């Protein structure tokens, strides 16, 4: 490549398998017929544009087959009725019936409400606690140990964590011994034991959200910690020398610099929480007003054999997540562009 002056990018030929193939095709007899149609076509086939598409094609095919095709079929299936086949003679077209069910049925409305509650509380707590822990633990000697301990729950499966917490929330009548940690503490302080997972509608939902926060705070903390350590110490020193209190330093220097990270972490957590399933399924199976969308989809699909409704619920979940994905991708693209 040395000694050659670079041409305009859209026209520089690349010596790779595609261009060689096109050249060979051009020289062959049938190729002459095909490509003699237009020299411009041949030039385009050798161009970077075509080469880029050719290299990306395998990945596009895989994504198309495993992601785009199922999504499209799910949307189509949501307009059809109950049954356990994708489309077939037994499945009848029902139009918007499934959609009406999703937005008017009482249990579905409860699930939507619960997902909103999860989205606000879970995201707020994980991001908030993650941030505070990252900043505070940076200043202590036992930072590594504390971080490891807080991060360990992220390494357990959600199902395992749910079973652990199910025992913590366990209830026994007051005069028998308590086996649940929480009720044990309550009774030790002289209170009455409570059925934590069956008190509706707020206590049991909060208890479930606590489990989610317990699992994911460590993850947020680790990311914030990495971002925090990237802040040049000189900036913080300068702020302190100028007489700022620790709180001012946090609010006016650290927070703005961690803004982008917070955005990424928050959108990741929101996407996680909108599809929360394991915690609810294992601990209450959606009973006592704790139902969430993903659990509803599972029940409709596998227990009630109603693929139509399950598809409608799945599409609702998709629609809810799309705005956050757009925000994430926009930020990613702008970051790439800024390089």
């Amino acid at each position, binding site marked *: 490549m040395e000694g050659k002056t670079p041409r305009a990018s859209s026209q520089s030929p690349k010596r790779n398998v595609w261009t060689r193939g096109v050249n060979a095709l051009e020289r062959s007899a049938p190729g002459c017929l095909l490509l003699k149609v237009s020299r411009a076509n041949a030039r385009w086939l050798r161009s970077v544009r075509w080469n880029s598409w050719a290299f990306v094609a395998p990945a596009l095919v895989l994504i198309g087959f495993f992601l785009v095709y199922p999504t499209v079929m799910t949307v189509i299936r949501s307009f059809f009725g109950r049954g*356990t*086949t994708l489309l077939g003679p*037994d499945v009848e077209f029902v139009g918007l019936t499934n959609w009406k069910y999703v937005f008017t049925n*009482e249990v579905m409305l409860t699930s939507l409400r619960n997902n909103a509650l999860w989205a606000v509380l879970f995201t707020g707590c994980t991001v908030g606690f993650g941030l505070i822990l990252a900043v505070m633990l940076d200043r202590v000697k036992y930072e590594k140990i504390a971080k490891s301990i807080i991060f360990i729950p992220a390494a357990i499966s959600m199902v395992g964590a749910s079973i652990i917490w199910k025992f913590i929330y*366990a*209830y*026994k*009548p007051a*005069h*028998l011994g308590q086996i649940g940690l929480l009720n044990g503490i309550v009774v030790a302080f002289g209170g009455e034991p*409570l*059925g934590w*997972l*069956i008190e*509706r509608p707020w206590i049991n939902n909060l208890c479930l959200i606590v489990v989610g926060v317990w699992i994911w705070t460590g993850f947020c903390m680790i990311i914030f910690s990495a971002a925090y350590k990237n802040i040049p110490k000189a900036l913080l020193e300068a702020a302190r020398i100028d007489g700022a209190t620790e709180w001012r330093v946090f609010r006016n220097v650290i927070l703005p610099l961690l803004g982008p990270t917070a955005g990424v972490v928050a959108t990741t957590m929101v996407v996680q929480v909108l599809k929360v399933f394991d915690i609810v*399924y*294992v601990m209450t*199976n959606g*009973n*006592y007003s704790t139902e969430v969308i993903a659990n509803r989809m*599972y*029940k409709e*699909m*596998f*227990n*009630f*054999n*109603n693929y139509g409704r399950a598809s409608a619920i799945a599409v609702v979940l998709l629609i809810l997540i799309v705005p956050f994905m757009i925000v994430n991708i926009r930020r990613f693209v702008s970051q790439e562009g800024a390089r």
Partner: protein
Amino acid sequence: MRKVLTVLSVLALVSLAGFAQMKYVTVMHGWPGEQAPAFQKIVAAFEEENPDITIIVEVVGRDRPALLATRLAQGNPPDLTPHPWIGTMKQWADAGQIVDLTGLVDTSDINPALVPIGEYDGGLYGLFIFPNVKSLVWYNPKEFSANGYNVPTTWAGLQAVSEQIIAGGGVPWSIGLESGAASGWPGTDWIEDIILRTAGADFYDQWVAHEVPWTDQRIKEAFEVFGDLFANNYVLGGATGALTTNFGDAADPLFLDPPAAYMQKQATFINGFITDHFPNLVAGEDYAIFPLPGINADATPDGSIPLLVSGDVVTVFNNRPEVIKFAQFLTSETASNIWSSELGELSAYVDADPAQFSNPITRQAQEMLLNATVSRFDGSDLMPGEVGAGSFWTGILDYVSGIDLDTVLENIEASAQDAY
């Protein structure tokens, strides 16, 4: 190199030939606990008689309906599965996914009263193998005699005993409704037993087939009889205790010292759980049963106590000779005897002699099974999945946790109208 290749290929061919001789039957069952070893013994007995057939057993938990649905959609279901879901079995039969066993299997070994349960639309789709009697109240006879409580034979007598227990400072009933993804099903057994005893077996059949709406007055009254247990504080821990106690642990309070409760209504299979939690208890002396008394004398034509039964039927997905052979074996005397002797459970075998059971409770239950004039299969297993394994279960949980009964029944009715 050539030599190695030839040797390897010869070995491969020989082992392939060997595999070709061996026949495989895949079984999926949902008895992860105390019943799994007993089933293994049955499998071992079959493999001894048939050395050329190997049974591959998959044990799954309460998610089996979901697993079977996905396997069927993929086209590779297990060869056969024992299950209690008659309603789902009918849906499978309609979809043509299971084998009609008429003419393939000889049902002469099965108790004739139980054979029709597996029949549907003119075909035989389920072989009844392991029955359970559900209308049993378990109690601690030593505590009863120590406190002077009499085993009740009427509903009024049952209420009187409950009052006696309260007066003595105890709590009569232990109820456990929790069961993971299936929470609520023990409550459905209560409602079914009560409906049989208040409205009769004919109304029960109409109710199960959704020929009467769930908002019918008689169904409402049955729910209220169940709710009265909580209203009168007869239940250990009240509603919270019932909702948070697992069904397998609900018998334990009867055997604490001092007992935290005195009675529990549950099917015969709880025997295995009791002996597992308290290995030193002796059947008949430390724990015994009496049938849940009738409520309305005119609910049955002859005034006898109706019996609620359930059990497992064997459904075959793939029609192959070795699969049919194993299905036939499961109905045989050998298999029933292993199951009964290992677990103290009942036998569907037509010539089952109650006297041969060493467990007095099994003897008593077997006699009930053979002598009952009015018996019905578990209702929630006969209903379509959306109701019987869905809104009925959550309805029980909602009602017990305090939701208004009319709302609960309307919700179940709404889902039933979709499902039937």
